[in-house]
């Protein structure tokens, strides 16, 4: 019977002494899905992954792969393979032997294992590399060997533990796309852990944001970005402006936040307590040289450019704005009248109430 999900975690808890590294985590990963677990270092994501691989054992809860409980199943008997952070290629073996290793462990004959390994190397674009030493490969090639070594076993699930961490920026950008393509070609379920939100956003079908051993939110990259469920998700995923204030009057669907300076801003959210946090994405901040262009917005302020952070398409402005303790960050358009704006120039900023998410602090 085909199971509707490849991986299910049910109330998984892992304690080290009194510290709960993983605290009551539940999730399912569908077949063929690229699922990421995103969180800051020390949030418990590595422990979670090691439990799925079989190197750690949950204090309580169940881990099921295609409906089969993995409790008590050793790592070498699970239909799960892992791409390690350090890649952990076997330096004492050639590239071909690395890929064939798992097959020979399963009792596949040497000749057939070599044949399948060389076919797999061809599929990941390393045709003819079988005889090379792994130490003679570039970073990107090593990466592909590590993945080929897993995929040749046709596992139910491939776990990837921040495998791009050690690569330089250019290669990392390239490998993001390559990984996504590999996953699509092989149609294998990937569970990917990372602290890099851009990796998770670019590659994943769904992302779980993890913090202090718990899942804060699980959703598609767009959902997380546009509708964060918690202030942690709002600030961890993507760039954002963040202000502290007190919830003032709440009207139909909207809420007003009074900043310490007395300035009132309008946003969306449900807050039961007084202390609240307001988040606005830099790209949601509208910029104009005269105030009339922003007249329809509920939040509009006057400011002065304090810094231009030029980074090509990701360029942004920091704008000192009356009533705000920290400068407002806004995306700098690369075309139009504002493209050449200089530090010190006066500017008007504004945003809709929808664009501002308000949470209890």
């Amino acid at each position, binding site marked *: 019977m085909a199971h509707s999900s490849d991986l299910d975690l049910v109330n998984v808890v892992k304690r080290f002494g009194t510290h709960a590294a993983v605290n009551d985590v539940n999730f399912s990963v569908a077949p063929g899905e690229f699922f990421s677990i995103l969180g800051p270092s020390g949030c418990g994501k590595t422990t979670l992954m090691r439990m799925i*691989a*079989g*190197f750690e054992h949950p204090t309580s809860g169940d881990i099921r792969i295609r409906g089969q409980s993995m409790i008590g199943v*050793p*790592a*070498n*008997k699970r239909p*799960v*393979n*892992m791409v*390690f*952070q*350090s890649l*952990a*290629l*076997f*330096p*004492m*073996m050639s590239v071909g032997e690395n890929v064939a*290793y*798992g097959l020979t*462990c*399963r009792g596949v004959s040497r000749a057939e294992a070599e044949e399948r390994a060389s076919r797999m190397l061809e599929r990941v674009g390393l045709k003819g590399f079988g005889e090379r030493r792994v130490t003679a490969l570039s970073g990107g090639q090593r990466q592909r060997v590590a993945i080929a*070594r*897993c995929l040749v*076993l046709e596992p139910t699930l491939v776990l990837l533990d921040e495998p791009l961490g050690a690569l330089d920026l250019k290669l990392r950008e390239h490998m993001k796309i390559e990984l996504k393509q590999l996953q699509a070609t092989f149609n294998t379920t990937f569970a990917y852990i990372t602290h890099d939100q851009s990796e998770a956003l670019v590659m994943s079908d769904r992302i779980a944001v993890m913090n202090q051993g718990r899942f804060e939110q699980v959703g598609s990259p767009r959902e997380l970005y546009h509708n964060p469920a918690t202030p942690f998700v709002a600030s961890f995923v993507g760039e954002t402006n963040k202000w502290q204030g007190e919830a003032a009057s709440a009207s139909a669907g909207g809420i007003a936040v009074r900043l310490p300076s007395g300035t009132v801003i309008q946003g969306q959210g449900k807050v039961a307590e007084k202390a609240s946090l307001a988040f606005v994405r830099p790209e949601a901040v509208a910029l104009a040289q005269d105030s009339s262009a922003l007249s329809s917005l509920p939040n509009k302020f006057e400011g002065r450019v304090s810094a231009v952070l030029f980074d090509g398409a990701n360029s942004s402005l920091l704008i000192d704005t009356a009533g705000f303790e920290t400068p407002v960050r806004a995306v700098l358009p690369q075309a139009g009248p504002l493209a050449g704006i200089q530090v010190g120039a006066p500017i008007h900023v504004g945003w809709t109430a929808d664009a501002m998410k308000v949470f209890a602090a």
Partner: protein
Amino acid sequence: MSRKPAQSLTLFLLLAPAVLWLGVLIVLPHVEILVLSFSERVAPRVYAFGFGNYLEFFTEPLYWRTFARTAIMSILVTAITLVLAFPIALYIARVAQGRMKAMLLLLCLLPFWVSELVRTLGWMMLLRETGVISYMLQAIGVTDQRTEFLYNDGAVILGLVYGGLLFMIVPLANALESLDPSVVEAGFDLGGSRWTVLRRIVIPHAMPGIVAGSIIVFMLTVGNFATPVLLGGKNGLWFTEQIYAQFITRFNWPQGAAFGMLLLLLSSAIVWAGLRLTGQSLGTTLKQA
């Protein structure tokens, strides 16, 4: 390329102790022994060049049999030491942490604060007919009379393994420590059993350490004198005893020198064969030791 005189002088001064050490203490005596080994006594106090001392070795069965016995037993001792030291080194390198690791290494080192002679005498106290083990076996009723555990091959091997253990553990632990834990985990993750991971990942990684430890233990064992004499007694029959006998008992220095050269050739040949067999180079091996 020309060097400044001051630089060459510094280089010369820095190298001088090593060159002196090698020249005076190692090369010179060996040249002396080599020359000596080719001199035959033709009349009292009259010596001539000849291969007689070497011929004597091959014609007298006691000599070459002792020689072969020493070689085989030394290989056996090295193998046993390796098998015993491997799990200990694995534990020290992979399992023990921090102070525990230092403690364990210190425990291995501790017996070496006592001289080899005293350590061997300690074994004699345990193994002799009126010794501790014999007494205990009699006391708990396993044997009804005293048993002699000394003066056999087992006792010699026991003593030699004991003496070699530390020199095997240290290079092995060094080699095993440099193995990335995630490489071992990857070995399991891809479906390897404990045995597969040991055979295909851990042992190949530790190979330079294994070879380094084996060379050291083999050399120490082949050249050992006190342990085979004390624990083996008349049955010890170690080749070093033959050399000792020629030099000291019989005053036949040329014969002793020939035996010494043969022993040097033997250890060199076996070390060379070991390196060839395991595909290791002397350079990488020395780095481990």
